[in-house]
């Protein structure tokens, strides 16, 4: 059997199928956790914004508590958060491993981060536009739905991009404790078995993934910012 060019370049990688599988796992973890992060973080961010000082539904004490909770979750390093959350993860999805086991800690780690970005993006919306909607008889919900979210969509798209990229990093970390994906491959083969070509390939793939996400995000933000 003659060696293919790929084999001579990456002598240690004997199973490209495994690499492909890891790619798909990473994408699944990213897609699943990003969707859930937005689903949870967006309302949380809106809540933070609305209950903040001087806002439509200002509730200083409630805001203080939610804000503290968000800060606590954000300040725990993700690798620690994953380990601490293991019992919760098991209770939620029935396993601590694989793509399924990775998603709960990813979401719990990223949702508070995204919520803060949402809060910041909403604060950029001009107070006058909100006042105009109120003068037209808009309810708080209508202000959120028809003014805040559409007016902040550029900032929100930027926030989703930043969060997605942070999640790529988190999924790679998850590899260290058995969540699979590219991080797992890099850790097991690249770090524990000194197969540096594995490390190189996974890093390149992750860089490409991050680049793609950033480009997509920038394009969407640019389209919204035009007006």
């Amino acid at each position, binding site marked *: 059997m003659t060696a293919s060019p790929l084999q001579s370049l990456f002598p240690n990688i004997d199973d490209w199928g495994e690499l492909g599988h890891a790619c798909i796992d990473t994408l699944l973890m990213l897609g699943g956790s990003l969707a859930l992060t937005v689903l949870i973080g967006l309302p949380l961010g809106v809540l933070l914004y609305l209950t903040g000082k001087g806002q439509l539904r200002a509730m200083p004490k409630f805001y203080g508590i939610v804000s503290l909770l968000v800060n606590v979750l954000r300040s725990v390093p993700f690798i620690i958060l994953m380990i601490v959350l293991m019992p919760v993860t098991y209770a939620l999805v029935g396993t601590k491993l694989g793509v399924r086991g990775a998603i709960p800690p990813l979401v719990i780690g990223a949702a508070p981060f995204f919520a803060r970005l949402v809060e910041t993006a909403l604060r950029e919306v*001009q107070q006058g*536009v909100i006042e105009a909607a109120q*003068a037209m*008889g808009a309810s708080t919900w209508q202000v959120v739905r028809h*003014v805040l979210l559409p007016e902040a*969509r550029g900032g929100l798209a930027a926030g989703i991009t930043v969060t997605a990229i942070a999640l790529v990093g988190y999924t790679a970390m998850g590899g260290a404790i058995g969540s699979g994906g590219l991080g797992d491959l890099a850790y097991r083969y690249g770090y524990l078995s000194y197969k540096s070509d594995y490390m190189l390939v996974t890093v390149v793939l992750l860089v490409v993934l991050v680049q793609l996400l950033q480009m997509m995000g920038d394009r969407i933000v640019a389209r919204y910012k035009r007006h």
Partner: protein
Amino acid sequence: MIRFLDVHKSYRVDGREIPALQPFNLDIRDGEVFGIIGHSGAGKSTLIRLINLLERPSGGRILIGDTDMTALPEPALRAQRRRIGMIFQHFNLLSSQTVADNVAFPLRLAGERDAAKIRARVDELLARVGLTEHAGKYPSQLSGGQKQRVGIARALANRPEILLCDEATSALDPQTTASVLDLLAAINRELKLTIVLITHEMDVVRRICDRVAVLDAGRIVESGTVADVFLHPQHATTRRFVDEALPEEAATAQAPNMTGRVLRLTFRGAATLQPVLSRVMREHGVDFNLLAGRIDRIKELPYGQLTLALEGANTDAALAALRAAGIEIEEMGA
């Protein structure tokens, strides 16, 4: 009728009550253009926002027709707000929506779902403000005057009975200001809606208001018809506003090294257009020296105001004859 009954407003800042508006009573009549003039910080933005309860009064009642706005629960208040249009100094349009969608916004908020009905109403409103060909543009592609016209179209969408104008022309150049004021005057005339506007420019009041209230440090110091307030200002703040509008006159009338009696004559309406002054002076053999003067209009009312120095034996008789002809005379002191 918009009626303020013993209304006052104060803000709580760091545990201290800061008064913004002293207790006041004010009636604004149906169909009139009512101006509230004051320097920044006088409380005029607070006052106009009390009408649609964007600001809640600290005490007193605000009635629109028979409805006590201050007693309404949230949903009823929102329904009332739809009957009150509002335009703003900085327009406050949705930057993410086209002109047409901005105008359709209050219709959608009010629960209108029928796309054909919305389009028909939007077309009608854009035609009214002269922006038909800009329907598909975004606010950032429009000039300031055009943005304010979108604001006006939007404010009129739900056929309100009252239009509140919050410094609506303060961000516009003089020419655009004039055209926006003309549009507001036309709307007031044709739709018979009540307009309440706040401004710091006497010229805006003079051009389109019927009545005016002067606000100074949270207090209404003077109010009445624009002609009365503008031609015979009583309070120092009002005089300052009038002087700002007519700067040269203020300067000449204040420095006369003249002999004789210095008087200010005010002609209103028909009297402005007749040669009363020269006839009376000739008949009584009185000489006069013209120190300052102007002939202009307050809304549709022509008026003239002349500052004269009179010399002659018969000045009292001449003044009596002028008064009899309906001319208002104030002694300025030499």
